């Protein structure tokens, strides 16, 4: 139960970066070092507080898994009415209360997010040095962290949505950062930023509708109240009403957008246009994790049918993205698709009925994916922005620290036993297996199959990337004269490397799949690891194949995969073009028809007036004739009326 100073502390976690952002916007540019120390320090503070809270929670011992500290649940006057604050009125959304939320799932996530964000800040102080919009960059970073932290501590879906949208803005600004560069702006960054925002916006709009339905259905959007209300409703009318299922699908759509699930995954690879630390932020700590977090939190309202969809979509994405990752030559693109694939795991975990498992993987993945991206950033930084795998190589000797940390992280994501990634992914596979044993047709088997297929692929493409980058001989001068990165950049790498190893231990709510499912999963995981790792070593380590030849080896499928299966082109054809065309039609319709009618009426009146005035000929006797005619007509009309 909440102690007196608990909520202030919890509130401090998001407010610190917020304050930093404010100062950064107002006075940042006049500060020494462009004020980068301001948000970095703030994040350090936030991280400290988060850890403090985490330890408190841990202090609860076995409680730690189940406890909930929430203003909503415990009242305590900490929640506040948001739309209308006057107590007199209790109608509708106006009665909406917002509050803080902290439980066994939030605790490690909050610490992880704060920590990773801090490390990214720290890394950026080195990576972004000399950038023309250094201050603005850090401002964006701070706001980004604020939004994510605030989302984690809010106790209702509406606020989750709000901060999630703010994250959208931040990612937009940060991805587009280079397009505003004072020296050489990159238009492609702008394009990528717009694409990212719009693609996720699709999901966001759907999510908003979902929330509207939920609100009108339950009159609340708070996690705990929903968790109570939904079962009552279902008991009340035996089964899930269709509107609730609709809401579930819409909410999931939101997650699809934010967590870059198929078919809305297209924005994430383009988001690589942003500076690499930003990618780390988006992929590890903030943006994409939000989607998973949302579905995990909304789990109670998700009908079984919806869950099935979620599981399949997630699993498919995991496999689909893995295949693409296998064929990419750009270091960051590989990581991007690996993220999509891993997110697929998490999402389908929710679908398989284990939100805890999903968040567990969010947690571990956050650690090692941050490590990977920062490592990639280090490599890119050291190789003068050379990020094509076929021109890297042989960095092991040149950048030992980066090498070590990258190795650990790669191993973790590939699922090497006793590393953090192993546990979380294992758990998800286990649930998939469970579902399969429970045995309900396609919906049950598909996830297991797809996830099972994705597992070896993960190991394969990750080690492919790793080996191509680090082992063998450098394939370009950039790679040849690469140097190890300075401390502010290498320190995060080390820490995250350690995190990749021990991260799993920091998680409270260990998922508990059934025994045999667990065994099955373990076997599956190990086999696939062996397969993937083996293949990678065989192919790239010993036979020294380089990226270019991979494609040739894999044949037509690879070309398709390289072409991203044409999804982007398809979207451009079916969405962007039609919208443009219709817009042009609409505007000409507006000008020609709508406005045309208005002007037409005016012109008609004027023309009529001219016709009438023609009769005003100036000849008195014509006037007389016209008068007689009028008088006659009048008389006849009158006679007709009267008699």
């Amino acid at each position, binding site marked *: 139960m909440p102690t007196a100073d608990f909520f202030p502390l919890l509130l401090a976690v998001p407010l610190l970066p917020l304050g930093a952002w404010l100062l950064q916007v107002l006075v940042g540019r006049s500060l020494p070092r462009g004020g980068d120390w301001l948000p970095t320090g703030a994040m350090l503070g936030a991280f400290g507080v988060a850890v403090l809270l985490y330890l408190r929670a841990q202090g609860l011992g076995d409680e730690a898994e189940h406890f909930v500290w929430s203003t909503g649940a415990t009242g305590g006057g900490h929640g506040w009415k948001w739309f209308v604050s006057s107590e007199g009125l209790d109608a509708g959304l106006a009665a909406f209360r917002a509050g803080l939320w902290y439980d066994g799932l939030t605790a490690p996530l909050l610490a992880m997010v704060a920590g990773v964000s801090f490390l990214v800040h720290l890394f950026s102080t080195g990576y972004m040095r000399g950038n023309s919009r250094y201050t603005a960059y850090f401002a964006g970073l701070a706001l980004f962290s604020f939004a994510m932290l605030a989302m984690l501590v809010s106790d209702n879906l509406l606020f989750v949505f709000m901060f999630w949208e703010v994250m959208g803005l931040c990612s937009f600004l940060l991805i587009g950062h280079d397009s505003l560069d004072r020296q050489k702006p990159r238009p492609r960054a702008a394009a990528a930023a717009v694409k990212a925002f719009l693609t996720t916006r699709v999901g966001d709009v759907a999510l908003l509708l979902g929330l509207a339905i939920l609100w009108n259905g339950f009159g609340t959007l708070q996690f705990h109240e929903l968790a109570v209300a939904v079962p009552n409703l279902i008991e009340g009318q035996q089964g899930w009403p269709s509107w609730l299922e609709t809401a579930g699908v819409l909410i999931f759509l939101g997650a699809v957008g934010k967590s870059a699930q198929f078919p809305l995954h297209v924005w994430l690879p383009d988001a690589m246009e942003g500076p690499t630390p930003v990618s780390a932020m988006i992929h590890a700590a903030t943006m994409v994790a939000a989607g998973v977090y949302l579905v995990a939190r909304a789990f109670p309202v998700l009908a079984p049918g919806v869950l099935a969809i979620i599981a399949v979509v997630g699993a498919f994405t995991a496999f689909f993205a893995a295949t693409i990752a296998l064929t990419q030559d750009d270091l960051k693109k590989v990581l991007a698709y690996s993220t999509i694939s891993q997110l697929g795991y998490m999402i389908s975990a929710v679908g398989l009925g284990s939100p805890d498992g999903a968040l567990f993987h969010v947690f571990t993945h956050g650690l090692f994916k941050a490590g990977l991206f920062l490592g990639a950033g280090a490599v890119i930084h050291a190789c003068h922005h050379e990020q094509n795998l076929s021109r890297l190589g042989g960095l092991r000797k040149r950048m030992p620290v980066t090498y070590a940390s990258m190795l650990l992280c790669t191993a973790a994501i590939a699922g090497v036993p006793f590393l953090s990634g192993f546990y979380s992914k294992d758990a998800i596979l286990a649930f998939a297996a469970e579902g399969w044993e429970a045995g309900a047709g396609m919906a049950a088997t598909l996830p297991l199959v797809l996830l099972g297929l994705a597992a070896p692929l993960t190991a394969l493409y990750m080690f492919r990337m790793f080996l191509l980058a680090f082992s063998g001989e450098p394939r370009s001068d950039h790679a040849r004269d690469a140097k190890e990165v300075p401390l502010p950049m290498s320190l995060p790498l080390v820490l995250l490397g350690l995190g990749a190893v021990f991260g799993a231990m920091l998680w409270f709510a260990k998922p508990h799949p059934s025994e045999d499912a667990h065994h099955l999963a373990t076997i599956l995981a190990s086999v696939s690891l062996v397969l993937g790792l083996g293949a990678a070593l065989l192919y790239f380590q010993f036979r020294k194949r380089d990226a270019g030849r991979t494609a040739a080896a894999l044949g037509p499928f690879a070309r398709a995969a390289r072409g991203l299966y044409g999804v982007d082109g398809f979207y451009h054809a079916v969405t962007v073009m039609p919208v443009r065309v219709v817009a042009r039609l609409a505007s000409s319709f507006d000008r020609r028809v709508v406005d045309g009618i208005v002007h037409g009426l005016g012109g008609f009146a004027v023309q009529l*007036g*001219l016709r009438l*005035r023609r009769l005003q000929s100036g000849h008195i006797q014509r006037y007389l004739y016209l008068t007689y005619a009028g008088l006659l007509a009048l008389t006849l*009309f009158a006679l007709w*009326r*009267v008699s």
Partner: protein
Amino acid sequence: MSEQLVLILPELALTGGLCLLLLVDLVFPRRRSWETGIFALGVLGVVAYLLLQRYHAGPHDAFGGLLRLDRFAAIFQLAITGAAGFALFLNLQQFRFPQDRGRIETQFLFLCATLGGFVLVGTQHLMMLYLGLEMLGLCSYALADVHKRDRAGAEAGMKYVVYGALSSGVMLYGISLLFGLGGASFAMPDVALGINQALLEGEGVRVLLPTLLLLAGFLFKLALVPFHWWAPDVYQGTTTAIAGYLAVGSKLVALGALLRCFAILFATTLHGIEGDPALLAVTTAASEFGASFGMVLAVLAAVSMLWGNLAALGQTHLRRLLAYSSIGHAGYLLAAVSLMSADGLAAAGTYALVYAVASLGAFAAVFGIAMRAGSEDLRDWTGLGWKYPLASGALVLFFASLTGLPPTAGFAGKWRLLASLWAGGQPLLALLLALLSVVSLFYYFRVIKQLYLERPAEDFRPAIERPLPWLAAFLLVVGAATLALLNLGWVDTPIAAATADLIRG
């Protein structure tokens, strides 16, 4: 006998005034004179004072019912007196046609026409009605032609006299028929009885045709379709002063006379006959006739509104524009009359007065600007709003009032019309009237646009330089009146009362 003379003091004063003018003209044969102008204005002042007395004195019959001197008469006689004063005043302000300024016979004619107007609105005897109409008409014909040495004036006079004589002839023919209908009597009440009798016998046609012919005279004076043709040409041909007098003065008295005729001839239609069940049949017959006849008038009104407002679009000569718009406004009046109800007649009277005020102002403002610009053509007025703010500002105000925009009297008047139309079961006419005021805004604001939304031409030279303090003062007064009369009660209450008297007889 003498008390009869007391009753007609205003008329006597006017007559005396114009006889004196004649004498002066004979004794000092100067073509032009300020003093006489001032004198004529003075006469009008006295007359106005006497008319106020008449207003309060209450109804009297003079000369065996030849004249009916009541509040109603007083109101409209005051109105035309005002119009005459306005015309005289503008006439004295003429600096661009010096040959015409303050000419004595012009002043004489104004007073004489006004006297005719007095008779026209002050009688319920058909022969007197015709007499008054002719007196007003003949003087107006002459007035229209005061521009010697000017073709336009001659042509205007010719058209006016031919057209006027014709329509008054038609009217006389109608009167002669009504004379028969009324059992060989010119007195309207007798005619009314005859009408009731005819209606009771179900011979509506015997009532209808004479009434239509009688109407012709009024349609001509009010410039209503199909008797409107003269208006644009004559307005354009004469001076602004005379055009203003025709557009306001003669229109007002004509409307007054029309209202009186209808109020008396169709009294039964208007309020039925209370009590006596024996006469119930008459009442029903009369109201049936009234309904169908009202429909005829309504159509006529609609056509006039449309005609006037549409033809005014794209018109660049200011006086022609005002002529067309006055046709439209006359249409509004007739629309109210066509309700054949006490409320409708009152509304028409009220709107007529409100329109008169704004219209006088508009003519004066146009007069002022035109004197500077040396032309009544809109295209020569580019950007003059910046050079002559007072006249132009006043013009904006008066046009706003004519359009019916708040906070001007015109708005209240339009509101009064709409209210009576809607209440009288003519929602379509109401809508038409409302929409046409949008059309009217278009052509009124074309003038405003020319005055303000353009920059004045560099090489612009005013036709006359000297300031016009009197005109300015006049504009201020009328402008103030236009704003003040937004409180319509001041006009509407007396008119409604007076009309009610008429109908009750």
